[in-house]
Every structure is written in C-alpha cells, then in structure tokens.
C-alpha cells in the first residue's frame, strides 16, 4: 500500500539521542525510508584549541570529549605525547592508569546499558546503574578530586598517588559489583519484551562493520575478535589475563551482551591490578613527571618542566576506549604547542553506519539500534 511521505524531525533535544543529535527522518507510513543525522550542535573546535594550548594545557580539554569516560581520553592523548617525546613511565603509574581506565569502562557500560533500557521504557536499570556508578565516582573523587572531568593522567605518570583508604573501598566495590551484574542479568537478559525489541534489530555483518570503520563493543558484537588491548597491547595489558568478549549475531542484542560480558572482564582485570600493584611510591618519571606529594599542594605541578618541547615528528596513537578505538594524531614542530591535533573519536566513526542500519525499520527500532551503538555527543562533535 502506498502512503504519503512524512518528514519527521527527531532531536536535537530528545532524551534518547543521548545529547544534542538531530535525525531528519523521511517516513513511509511507520517505517523509516531515509535517516540523516545532523551533527555539530556541540562542536567546540577542540582540535583548533589543541593548536593554541601547550601539551599540558590541552589535557583538561580531552576530558570533555567523551565525558562519561574521561580517563581513557586523558590517557590516549598522553600516550601520543609520550610516544613523541620518548618518555618512560614507572610501573606503578601504569598500574594506576589501568585501574582508572577499567573502572571507567564499567561506569561507561553502566550508563550505556542504563540509558538504553530507559529509552526502551524500563526505568529500573538506570536507577541501579547510577547507584553503582555513584560508588565508582566517589572512588574517582578520592583519587583526584573530580567526579567526571579528571585531568589526572599526565605525561610521565599520574598526578597524585592513591590515597589512604582507597584500596579497601575499591575492594568493597569489586565484591559488590560481581553480585550486581548477576542482578542485572536476572533483570534484563530473560525479559521477553527486551528480547523482542533487541533481537534481529539493526543487524550488521562483520564485513560491513569493518567497512564502516566500527570499533569496540559494536564491532565485537558482529563477530570480529578484535581488541586493541589484546592485539596491539599498550601499558601493562600484556601482563594481564583477560579474554575478548565476542558475539556473532551482529544485532542490537549481541552488542548489549558484549557490554555485559566486558564489565565482568574489567572486574577480573581490576582484581589482578589490585593484587599486583607495585609497592614503590614512584608515580611519575624522573625527568618529566610530577614529583610525589610532599605535603604542599603547590609542589605537585611545579615539577613538570614549564617549557616542554617534544622533538619534531608525528604520531598516530590509539587505545581501546570503552566505546571503541580512540586515537590522537599529534604533529609536533618542536615548539611548546602541538602543530596539529587530530582526534579519531569512536562515537563519530561508529555513528557513520546508523543510516544504513535503520533504513526500513520503525522509529522505536532506531532508538534501540542507536542505544546499542553507545555514542556521546561530546565525542561525536568535538
């Protein structure tokens, strides 16, 4: 049956667009004929700011890209700078970095799953997810004084050492979280309505997913066994035991299950990090780092050289952020400021596929498929 074409504008202010994203939808009755995302509502010119700030000054701006998981953003930029300048990092600092990043991965997946379920009409999961997230945010606050935008990882190490009382609280969190994930699975995984909303929705084959430049849990949901932590290891990941979570179905449900499994793997990694944390108090490199706390807060930042100039060169450095491959292309011309900073954000590249993913589906399916891609608009628009 032929019906008139209808134009629908979804967003930019719509709860299930996870920020300020606008979809222009051409509808044929109830099914989507064409979906055009309109980006840029949150564009702040972060790459241009990068050219105008020194290397150290730019780190706080990276926090504001993917603000749900800011530690990996810090680390990705710092890793690029460290590769450019050839800075060695002490083992304890690397352990602390991995600890923060894996905690952040759990936080990210909790928010992702919670908001996905809320978009589908189940409000319980976001309450539960935010309850556990709060505990993790309190840990972050103990560590660096901030809950979401940390500015904690610096070239050569981390800003401050782990405070007293942090480890017992972390152990409590890990013990608690194990049980909580069981609860989530009991709540969601067997739910028939959830299955009907998620299975065979937004299906993408492994070949197409690679062709669209998908990375992270979205790619692993399509059956590509790939994780940068495993296959292009950085930091201390070669020493850690964890498995790459893969599902072969390629639909929204598979991407959801991959995130659930990854939370368990992150807990497993965190337990190893806690057990093997080096006892030395060295948290930054002797040449470039920040000296350990000596009592006066001003002593902390003053040890990093005011004039820091990496040798001329260019580097593309990437890590496995919770949302996928996060890369920084940094060009140094030997001055105190980068000549060019290019951010390869996972949200932007994963979003490329959404028009082809939802064509022919209905609007509620768009919300389900979009929710499992898990984008943050600060990361898309930069």
């Amino acid at each position, binding site marked *: 049956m032929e019906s008139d074409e209808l134009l629908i504008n979804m967003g930019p202010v719509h709860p299930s667009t996870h920020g300020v994203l606008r979809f222009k939808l051409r509808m044929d009755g109830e099914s989507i004929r064409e979906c055009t995302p309109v980006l840029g509502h949150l*564009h702040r010119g972060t790459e*241009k700011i990068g050219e105008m700030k020194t290397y150290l000054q730019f780190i706080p701006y990276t926090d504001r890209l993917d603000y749900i998981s800011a530690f990996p953003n810090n680390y990705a930029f710092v890793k690029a700078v460290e590769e450019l300048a050839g800075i060695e990092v002490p083992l304890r600092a690397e352990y602390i970095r991995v600890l923060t990043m894996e905690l952040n991965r759990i936080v990210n997946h909790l928010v992702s799953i919670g908001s996905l379920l809320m978009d589908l009409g189940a409000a319980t999961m976001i309450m539960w997810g935010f309850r556990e997230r709060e505990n993790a945010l309190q840990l972050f606050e103990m560590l660096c004084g901030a809950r979401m935008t940390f500015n904690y990882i610096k070239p050569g190490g981390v800003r401050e050492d782990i405070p007293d009382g942090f480890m017992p609280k972390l152990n409590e969190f890990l013990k608690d979280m194990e049980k909580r994930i069981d609860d989530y699975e009991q709540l969601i995984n067997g739910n028939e309505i959830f299955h009907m909303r998620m299975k065979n929705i937004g299906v993408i084959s492994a070949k*197409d997913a*690679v*062709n669209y*430049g998908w990375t992270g849990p979205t790619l692993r949901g399509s059956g590509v066994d790939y994780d940068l932590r495993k296959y292009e290891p950085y930091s201390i990941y070669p020493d850690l035991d964890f498995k790459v979570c893969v599902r072969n179905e390629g639909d929204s449900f598979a991407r959801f299950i991959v995130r659930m499994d990854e939370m368990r793997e992150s807990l497993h990694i965190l337990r190893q990090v806690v057990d093997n944390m080096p006892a030395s108090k060295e948290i930054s490199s002797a040449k470039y780092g920040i000296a350990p706390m000596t009592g006066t807060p001003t002593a902390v930042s003053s040890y990093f050289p005011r004039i820091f100039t990496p040798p001329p060169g260019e580097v*593309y450095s990437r890590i496995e952020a919770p949302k996928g491959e996060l890369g920084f292309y940094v060009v140094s011309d030997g001055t105190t400021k980068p000549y*060019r900073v*290019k951010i390869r954000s996972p949200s932007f590249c994963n979003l490329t*596929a959404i028009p082809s993913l939802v064509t022919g589906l209905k609007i509620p399916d768009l919300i389900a498929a979009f929710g499992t891609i898990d984008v943050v608009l600060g990361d898309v628009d930069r």
Partner: protein
Amino acid sequence: MNAAEELKNLLPGSVVSTGLQLNKPMAVIKKEELLKAAGKAKEMGFDHLSVITGIDYKDHFEVIYNFFSYNKKQNLALKVNLDHDKPEVESLTGLWNGADWLERETFDLVGIKFIGHPNLVRILLPDGWNGHPLRKDYDMNTEQFVTIGENGDDVVSTDGTNLLRRK
C-alpha cells in the same frame, strides 16, 4: 620488509618514498595515484580505515590515511602531498563506507576537496560558514553567528547585533 615497502614493490610507479610514522610503516603516494594505491592496500588485507587527517603546512597540504589489517595485525599509513592552491584528492568512499564522514569532516575543517565523494558538504559546522577553521590562515577575529532561518535551515552571518545576548 614492512607493509610500506611491500606496497612500493607492487606499485613502484605510485609510491614516491617509504618511511616510518614514528613506529608505523608509511608510504608517500603520488596524489593522482591514491585511489589505486589504497585499492592495492585493501587487497593486501588492510581492511580497516582508521582515520583521515588533513594538515595545513602553509605551503602545501598533507592528507594522511591510517590503515590497519585485522588479519595480519599490521599498521600502514599512506600520505599524499597536495598543492596549497588546489587541495584536491580522490575520494575513498567507493572502497570504505567509513571514509564518507571522515572525508566530510576533513573538507569541513581543513578544506580539502575529495573528488568523487557523493555528498561533500559540511558536517560539523553549518552550511554557509566562512573559512575552514583548521587552516593556519583562518581568521579567528571575525565572529560568526548562527540563527535559524524561515525554513528551519541554519543562517550564518557576521552581524551579531540582533541576537539576544547578555551584555
């Protein structure tokens, strides 16, 4: 032999030089031959187009393509040098769907034209924006304001006197 040298052996006429991008093999490609070289790289197994970076060096532009192979677990970077007066290069959208938005972003912010791109319009900034912000000669002192026009499209102007702004 690294991947860049391998590519040079396969296409000696297209590759100008090979080297390293810090620790990843990189090949500099003649700008007319980019599509051919990228197609050959895809045949060699480099199936993941990671990022496209455009850089303004004042006298010329560089566009860098970072690839990765999921089977071989190897990296490869291709670089082309473009004239500053005529920054044009062939589009890779025929080979990688993911190149679509990456090229639009490079066009938007750096102002490089990708020949053969199906929909080369601005992506992050609104249509009608003056200049490309990541060029080194971009005018940072002229403020530009975006309002919504009659039909819902963005309207860019340099006149901010009518806007509701806090004094």
